[in-house]
């Protein structure tokens, strides 16, 4: 990996979204709740990084009025198990900053959101994604050959925002046999805003059988052609808040723009009309 590529890894890891948390107006408080401002890491998860937010609002509430915390943006419950950057790109990318999130402590939307009673649930979810990604990339061989302490190091690196600690292990998940030219299949999910279906996930190889390198455009054409249909730019294809060129090799994207869970989370959103 050349020096420039390493910078990309750092830029992805250290991406932040300025956010304003406001308590839902119908929550019962003992006095007025002030909004709380926080820079959220794009690559982390809401319930992992909002302890301070919770503490802040609990100061003005009685214990009996507090149940499991959940977050909402403009009426849509936010899925904590999606990376924060993905949630932002999907719901709020063409709006002005800071991102305004509403905090709830009651009426947990059971059907729509997963429960998150503690950090080990987040860890289990995170590790499950990594394992699934490796099943696609390496038939699970690399992840299964690692020791438990290596798995733990991946999680601790994410939890404690330690880039070097994380990548010391993650780099092994980004290797592949030279003769193969890339991973077996690319772990990706394409998220759609205009659909009941939350995302598309299919098997897709980075290199075609005749050796030609697949691009982001090739992926979309195969799996979600609507995104790049000829009508003048109706949709934006966004990864980590940017629109990569469709000519970008998919293997490179997978190695450099994946989230810590080793998945490429791709948002297809309506282009702003102006």
């Amino acid at each position, binding site marked *: 990996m050349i020096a420039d590529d390493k910078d990309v890894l750092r830029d992805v890891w250290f991406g932040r979204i300025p956010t304003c948390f406001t308590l839902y107006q119908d929550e019962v408080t003992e006095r007025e709740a002030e909004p709380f401002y926080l820079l959220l890491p794009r690559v982390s998860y809401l319930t992992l990084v909002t302890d301070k937010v919770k503490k802040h609002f609990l100061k003005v509430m009685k214990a009996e009025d507090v149940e499991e915390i959940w977050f909402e943006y403009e009426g849509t419950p936010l899925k904590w198990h999606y990376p924060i950057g993905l949630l932002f790109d999907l719901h709020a990318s063409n709006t002005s900053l800071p991102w305004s999130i509403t905090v709830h402590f009651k009426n947990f939307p059971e059907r*729509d959101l997963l429960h998150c009673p503690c950090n080990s649930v987040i860890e289990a979810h995170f590790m499950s994604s990594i394992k699934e990604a490796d099943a696609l990339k390496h038939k699970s061989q690399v992840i299964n050959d690692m020791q438990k302490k290596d798995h733990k190091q991946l999680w601790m690196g994410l939890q404690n925002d330690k880039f070097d600690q994380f990548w010391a292990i993650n780099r092994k998940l980004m290797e592949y046999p030279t003769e193969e030219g890339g991973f077996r299949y690319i772990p990706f999910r394409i998220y759609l805003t205009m*659909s*009941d*279906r939350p995302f598309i996930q299919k098997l897709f190889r980075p290199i075609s059988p005749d050796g030609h390198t697949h691009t982001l455009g090739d992926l979309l054409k195969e799996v979600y052609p609507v995104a790049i249909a000829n009508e003048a730019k109706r949709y934006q294809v966004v990864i980590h808040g940017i629109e990569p060129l469709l000519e970008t090799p998919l293997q490179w994207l997978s190695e450099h723009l994946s989230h810590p869970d080793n998945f490429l989370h791709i948002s297809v959103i309506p282009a702003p009309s102006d």
Partner: protein
Amino acid sequence: MIACGHSNDQMSSCVLDEETFCRCCQLFLEHSHSLCDGWSWQLVKGSEEGYLRKVALGNVRIRTSSNPNQITDQYIQGASSDQRQGRTSPFTPHKENDDDHNDEQYYDDDDGAVCCMQDSRSSGVIQYEYHILYSYSYQTPVLYFRASTLEGRSLSLEEVWDGVHPNYRQRLQHGPWDTITQQEHPLLGQSFFVLHPCRTEEFMRPVLQAALEEHRQVNYVVTWLSVVGPVVGLDVPLSYCTKVPAPSHTSPSPLQPPALQTQPD
């Protein structure tokens, strides 16, 4: 095709491709219709993808409480493994001796385990919904399920664990990935419980290898469901195993002797 291959380092894997999954489901459904046991094929809007679905009602004893935290506390207090041995699985149909257990604690006849019932409004009838989807990542079927009271209250993970037969519970708690967790349904976007698929290949492999050696064909979905279904209270009548055929193939059978088999890729 269902493919079983041996590579040079003696590692074999048995994978199920999507097309074979669909064909297995089709054959499964034909038998299901003859039994009228409630399975149907659901199509995903705007795509050719689909999944098997079944809704079932069960009359069970469940821990109900207006305060969700209370459930966890009771579960932890009431449940040491020896106390719970012999306790009826809530998933089996249970005949109540008397219908009213208003705010009453009572003891299980057999083993003295505490089982608490509150909230007399709960009828004790639970609706279960089971979905069988295809996983691209693991190339196996996956079982998604959810349960709710007739009043619409979703069952918690603790209550779901209550329903897992004690024999299976220990094995399921083996590793963080070998277990029942709450996940997002990949086609519907709603919360479901899932039996993690990463070990499916492990228990399917011996079955498929044996079938290969005996020149028998196997319906992957039926075999798989007969293993995982009972773990979560889903009954799979024996006739499925005897009456549902494996999908036929127009091309030569993929189930060839290992020496000739190459790993399709």
